[in-house]
């Protein structure tokens, strides 16, 4: 099943990166390596004994400058299951609210000798800015509308478990593409693995020249669904919208809501994904989201913990004294 471009070298050369800021810059075999590394954690997490003291003694700081529940929790569980000391920096009570600059906050975290920092920030490029200033590996947990690499990796792992191959797989991503870092990371990741990516949104929610990222652009959801093997739904990111982009949620559902009827236009075995949080009754109907055979949504959450464990393990190998790792 493994195509040649996924074959990665032995040992430390499999992933020669110091941090994970984005999918951009990763080779297909590096993505594949992280997916392979995650499999052991999928296995372990399904058992009764969910802890391995791999990162024992290491400190991981989750610095979330933007509110998050599921991603923060997922990273926290991932770190703890590997035996690390995990500290969450809550933005509401931090000195960021007192006017401290992002760089000063980053230098403070650095001085506390974190072994890895996981960052989420509302501005595109903020994670790279911090990564350039600190000594330890930095993991991007979402920066503005730029990238959310672990989401794309967990989505790829979910698809790998559910489908035969990426090559020729048709994936339709529908929703607020403009404001979505999940869409950008998934476009890069799925393209890299050989899938055919379609994006679907009304023009106001479609970024300019997105076709230059090697996707097919659709405005008609019914057309975008024809022949799709996987349908990824995104929510409307109202909090990022400046001005009115759509007339109403009801009207949006009328054109872009994934109903059972609409899903029937995709391949008979098409699977449904959603990075959450869902707005049931807007972009996705409950009977689709909860469909036992077709929905992968809870599976995505499960894979998320495993992927984050794999990333934390791989990126701290140098810090743990393992020869050759970046």
């Amino acid at each position: 099943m493994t195509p040649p471009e996924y074959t990665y070298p032995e040992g430390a050369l499999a992933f020669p990166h110091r941090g994970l800021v984005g999918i951009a810059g990763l080779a297909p075999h590096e993505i594949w390596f992280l997916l392979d590394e995650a499999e052991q954690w999928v296995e372990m997490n399904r058992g009764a004994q969910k802890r391995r003291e791999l990162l024992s003694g290491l400190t991981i700081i989750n610095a979330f400058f933007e509110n998050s529940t599921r991603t923060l929790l997922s990273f926290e569980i991932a770190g703890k299951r590997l035996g690390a000391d995990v500290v969450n920096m809550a933005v509401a009570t931090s000195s960021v609210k007192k006017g401290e600059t992002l760089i000063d906050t980053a230098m403070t975290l650095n001085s506390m000798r974190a072994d890895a920092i996981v960052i989420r920030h509302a501005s595109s490029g903020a994670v790279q800015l911090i990564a350039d200033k600190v000594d330890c590996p930095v993991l991007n947990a979402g920066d503005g509308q730029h990238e959310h690499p672990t989401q794309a990796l967990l989505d790829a792992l979910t698809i790998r478990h559910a489908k035969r191959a990426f090559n020729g797989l048709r994936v339709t991503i529908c929703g607020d593409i403009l404001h979505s870092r999940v869409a950008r990371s998934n476009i890069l990741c799925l393209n890299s693995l050989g899938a055919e990516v379609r994006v679907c949104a009304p023009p106001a929610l479609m970024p300019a020249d997105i076709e230059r990222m090697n996707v097919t652009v659709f405005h008609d959801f019914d057309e975008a669904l024809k022949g799709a093997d996987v349908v990824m739904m995104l929510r409307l990111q109202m909090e990022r919208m400046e001005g009115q982009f759509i007339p109403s949620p009801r009207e949006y559902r009328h054109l872009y809501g994934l109903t059972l009827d609409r899903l029937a236009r995709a391949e008979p075995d098409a699977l449904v994904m959603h990075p959450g949080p869902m707005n049931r009754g807007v972009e996705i109907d409950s009977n689709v989201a909860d469909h036992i055979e077709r929905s992968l949504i809870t599976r995505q959450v499960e894979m998320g913990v495993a992927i984050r464990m794999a990333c934390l393990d791989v990126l701290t190998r140098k810090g743990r004294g393992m020869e050759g790792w970046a």
Partner: protein
Amino acid sequence: MSIQASLTITGGQLLLPDGTVTPGAVRCEGGFITAVGAGVVPQKGDTVHDAAGRIVAPGLVDIGVFAIDKPAFHFGGITRAALMPDQNPPLDVPARVRFAAQSGKPDFWVHPLAAATQGLEGTSLAEIAMMRDAGARAVATGRRWIGDSGTMLRLLQYTGMLGMIVIAHAEDAGIVGNAVATAGEMATRLGLPSAPAQAEALAIARDITLAEMASAAIHFRNVTTAAGLDLVRAAKARGLHVTAGISPAYFMLSDLAIGAFRTFTHLSPALRCEEDRKAVVTAIKDGTIDVITSGHDPRGPEDKRLPFSDSAPGMAGAETLLPLTLNLVRDGVIDIGRAFALLSTNPSRLLGVNAGRLAVGAEADIAVIDPERPWIVNSDKMAAAAGNTPFDRQPVQGRVLALFKGGMAVRRSNSG
């Protein structure tokens, strides 16, 4: 009244108002040029400066800077600058204009631009005639455009009556919103808030129409797109009082430069696509663009060491204005005479100041320049108040060797 010694700059290649370069000398008395040409020799008691065969040109006149930063201006050969009203607080009352007009003297002249509207908010007209009489040379809308077309029309009717030019920022704010980049592949990949480049042409089309209705003169500080430049070109062909400026970043860089989220490339307007960059070069060549300006806006780490969309726009441009313009000369786009028309003569004319040319009777603002001298831009070692230049580590050519304001030598730091 101070007694100014007379000065003769000898042995230079004089850059004359007709754009020709000829060997000769310039003599200045009482702050004014009194003789120019091949036969001019120093008189008894003159201070003599030997130009040693270098170019002797009028000092640069910079329309639309955001800060008074004398060391940077002097380094760049700039003797006068029109200060944007976007100060804190804004230049929207006569007292602040009067203060700003005095702030550079004697060795640098600041020409304040009066805020078009109170607080630059685009709603109520400011006291423009009183600011004119306090020393404002022109009116500016600031970094923003005036969204209300009725307000803009009344502004232009008023400035038309007063004989003042309006310096406008040409971007439709409704389309631009909080964008920090031009819509396109680069902004999409980076996930930066972006707006279509057509926001510029929309604003220019409206403002040209309004200026024509009001029989007023309008100058667009930066016209950065092919579509915007076409509108300016057509308006000029119809004989309207429409002029356009540009900063070197827009003929040197495209939006590819924002690739690594480098906030020194965060400018307003945002950098455009490569086709627009080429259109700017063409417009400089064919005369559509009248003025090259630094847009000097020194910004320290507190404004620039931030995520791209949280950072302040603007670049420190005074020191690189001349060498980057001379790139166009070396590339054969324009000759050196045209370069100084863009940098000195045209901006002087737009501001209505008696400078910007080596001619008898003009104020003796003179730069001695080696147009070939190579140096490397270094953001850590700039004369400017901050080193926010997108041209960091870039080799350039062209350096000011000596500078005279009103016939007096300007002491310059960092001139090695």
